[in-house]
């Protein structure tokens, strides 16, 4: 259905709320890391302060950079915000279903990745170039797992609309619970890789590549870029929650249901990021050349979900 005004307002509200919450989520990771290192560490709001501080600083471009380099942070954030309007997060339906199809969402992420990768080459820096090559390679390796697990979920719901999948899984309206669970596991793996945290911190590996595509950014552009990357992490986890953990989400547009749905979403988000924080701080980086072994394992799990779907267990 074409979204009416109420749905549309919810979509915009959702995108803005996620944008505002993103630095909190990334700040939480830093707090958890500090706690695991048994050091004092920054406060929960440190990332907001960092963003404001960076915004005051001068933007310095490399001499060979063109308009792609300069426009990329804005394009990245705009694309991620559009994705955020279509994903069911607080609700079991997509607030903006015409952008909330699983194929559209995957390809909007590709738009973001296209410009992120291109900016690395455009900067003229060798670190940024290698970082963008890795960013795109990881995208290639994780794509089959992501699509197959989502495809199985979509087949269970009979629709590629994210909202329909969400409500089908929430209501248990699918003929194979096992397939849904295994698809959820495979999708969780794909999402984890997309987060870009250890052990799959490939493109922005600080110690290896000087933060990859971010190397040459500074000042306001770096602020928007860092904010966008935190936003991306929040959105992909929100995507997982919306599809495979839609419990507690609102089924209607009534204010009470929406508030409850929002609270449930916030709680799930915090739990997942706490888990991610603990995992990422207790492992070492995978060597880049061994990445395919991990991604093939992901494809294997997703294929298992597909087999379960076919036999209908």
């Amino acid at each position, binding site marked *: 259905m074409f979204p009416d005004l109420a749905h549309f307002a919810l979509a915009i509200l959702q995108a803005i709320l996620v944008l505002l919450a993103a630095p909190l989520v990334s700040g939480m990771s830093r707090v958890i890391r500090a706690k695991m290192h048994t050091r004092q560490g920054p406060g929960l709001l440190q990332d907001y302060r960092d963003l404001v501080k960076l915004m005051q600083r*001068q933007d310095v471009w490399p001499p060979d950079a063109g308009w792609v*380099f300069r426009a990329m942070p804005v394009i990245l954030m705009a694309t991620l915000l559009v994705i955020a309007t279509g994903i069911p997060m607080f609700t079991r339906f997509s607030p903006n279903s015409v952008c909330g199809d699983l194929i559209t969402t995957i390809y909007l992420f590709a738009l973001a990745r296209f410009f992120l990768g291109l900016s690395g*080459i455009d900067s003229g820096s060798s670190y940024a170039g290698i970082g963008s*090559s890795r960013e795109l390679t990881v995208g290639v390796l994780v794509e089959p797992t992501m699509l197959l697990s989502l495809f199985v979920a979509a087949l269970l719901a*009979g629709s590629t609309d994210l909202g329909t999948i969400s409500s089908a899984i929430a209501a248990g309206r699918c003929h194979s619970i096992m397939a849904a669970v295994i698809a959820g596991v495979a999708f969780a793996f794909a999402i984890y890789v997309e987060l870009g945290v250890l052990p799959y911190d490939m493109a922005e590996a600080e110690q290896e590549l000087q933060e990859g595509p971010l190397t040459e950014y500074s000042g306001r552009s770096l602020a928007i870029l860092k904010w966008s990357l935190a936003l991306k992490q929040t959105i992909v986890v929100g995507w997982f929650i919306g599809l495979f953990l839609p419990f507690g989400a609102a089924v209607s547009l009534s204010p009470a249901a929406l508030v409850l749905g929002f609270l449930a979403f916030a709680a799930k988000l915090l739990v997942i990021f706490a888990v991610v924080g603990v995992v990422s701080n207790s492992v070492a980086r995978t060597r880049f050349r061994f990445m395919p072994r991990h991604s093939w394992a992901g494809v294997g799990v997703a294929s298992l979900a597909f087999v379960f779907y076919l036999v209908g267990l």
Partner: protein
Amino acid sequence: MSAAVHPFWLDPMQMLLVSVGVFLLGGLASLLLGGRERAAIRVSGVAGIVGALAGLWSGCRSLVGPVHGFDIASPFPFAHFVLRLDPFSGLLVAVISLLALVTAIYSFAYVREYIGRGVGPMGFFLNFFVAAMLLVVTSDNAFWFIVFFEMMSLASYFLVIFDQNQEAVSAGFLYFVVAHAGSVAIMAAFFLMANVTGSFDFATFRVATIPSPVNSIVFVLAFLGFGAKAGIIPLHIWLPRAHPAAPSHASALMSGVMIKIGVFGIVKVGVDLLGASNGELWWGLWVLFFGAISSVLGVVYALAEHDIKKLLAYHSVENIGIILLGVGVGMIGLAIGSPVLAVLGFMGGFYHLLNHAVFKGLLFLGAGSVIYRLHTKDMEKMGGLARAMPWTALSFLIGALAISAIPPLNGFVSEWYTYQALFAAALSDSWAARIATPIAAVMLALTGALAVMCFVKAYGVIFSGPSRNPHMAEIREVPRPMVVGMALLAAACVALGLAAPIVAPIMGKIAAATAGVPQITLASGIMLIPGNAHQAVLSTPLVAILLLAMAVLPLVLKAALTGTGRPASRRGAAPWAAGYLPDSHMPVTAASFAQPIRMFFRPLYSMRNDLSRGWVWLACAFEGFVAWARRTEPRWDNEIIAPVVDGTENVGRRLQAIQGGDFRIYCLYIVVALVVLLALAVR
């Protein structure tokens, strides 16, 4: 011939004949003007524009309209010259004409590069090539189809070898061999059908019921023959060598439309001509299988290339694969009796056929513009061209985004419909389809991710970052006709994406008419719908509006939080290189950017080498045959003709002994002869 719709306007079929006539005349005029090269360029270009406009009008008019026919007796009693414009061939006519129009505009400036190397013949072959393609897609008789198919192959062969260097000639030879191997398979398929029906007319093929094993043999032969033309893997080996060798506007036509005639042929035979004898399920699965293989391998091989035109040629293999995924689902839909699936699959394939023609044409013209200025096809020698050639760069970027299926551009819309077709097939009752189509969807997703990487590399290494070319200071934007040609196609990429709610139902009508099933809902308002709205909805105009609107937010954030005092931004010194002095060898190159993929997909590359070894073996065998023939031919001379000639000469020489030159001796001969004759007569 049906009557004209309006006394002034011609009907689509008459317009098509006008278009073909203009192309043929333009080609001949260009050839005759051979010596006056600038005039030849102008004549060939103007004829191209006029012919293409007529063709475009004819094609667009027949997309939704009734079928138009044309039938006159030809010199051959067994084959009437029959043309037929149905919606599907109308689509092909429109696509061919669109690309012909743009390349004709582009050629005004581009062909000047070739002055002194025979631009007259180039205009001749190019115009005949377009005319032959227009006739192939509309001819309705097997004999004439083959004639025009050969004419198309020959004209394009001469364009491939136009540069006359070693590489072009050997690429042309391989193309020639593969094209003719394909023609033989197509001829065999038509002969088998003619054998059953007793006629070469497609009209009789269409209604005839061809018995079971024969129809499958016909389909497989046609699939292989047209597949060789389309460049599906493993019959693709000529494509990445032949397309780059031709002049760039000819490459745009070959990659943009000629290989589509391969797809056209597969659909024509598999759906239209064999329609009455009910296709089998495995035909669709077979097409799906080759489509999936071609799409993934095409893009994997493209990634490893650093020759810009070879990279684009491999992408044609990939996109043919994507089109075949849609066509495969359509054929599965027909076989299992699901009209929704049939229309959805075919319309996804046809939409992608149109889109690929537009963006691949654009990318080849962009590559041509870069080569026009830099005189090299090697991407490692480019870099930073966006500053010198901003319009070329912007057009190429739009083409790169479109071919990577980035929303809201046209490539995304057709791939979205293809995904929806695969999804609908995965929900069908057929077990084979339920297993095969999700795997094909995964292949398509992998293809999409690889295409993004490949075009980030292509655009980035050519247009972004530091320049690696020593003559950078002299490089400037290409002449206006070339910019206009590219801009038209770039605008078409955007328009076909944003206006998808208008285009999709037209494609649906073509698909429904081709498959002979009722039309389904494909759009409503500004929404796209794959048959039913429960399955999914999409609105590319809304995506575009939202993308623009959301871009305001970061700009506002920037403006609101910026500090005061110093200027907000400035251009700095060299990029950070961990303390070393940066030099031009440090940034990524085409090879280093794709290195991870080459490492991770190594088995696929070694498979290509094995595959091409097979074809090289065939080409070697053919060359060996030619060499043997060359050796054998003098043997005939030496051993049979030469002895006879020698013997005659010997006899002559001996006879010279009796030629004294003195007339008295000749008188004596006459007397002796008379005496001998008298003696014989008396006895």
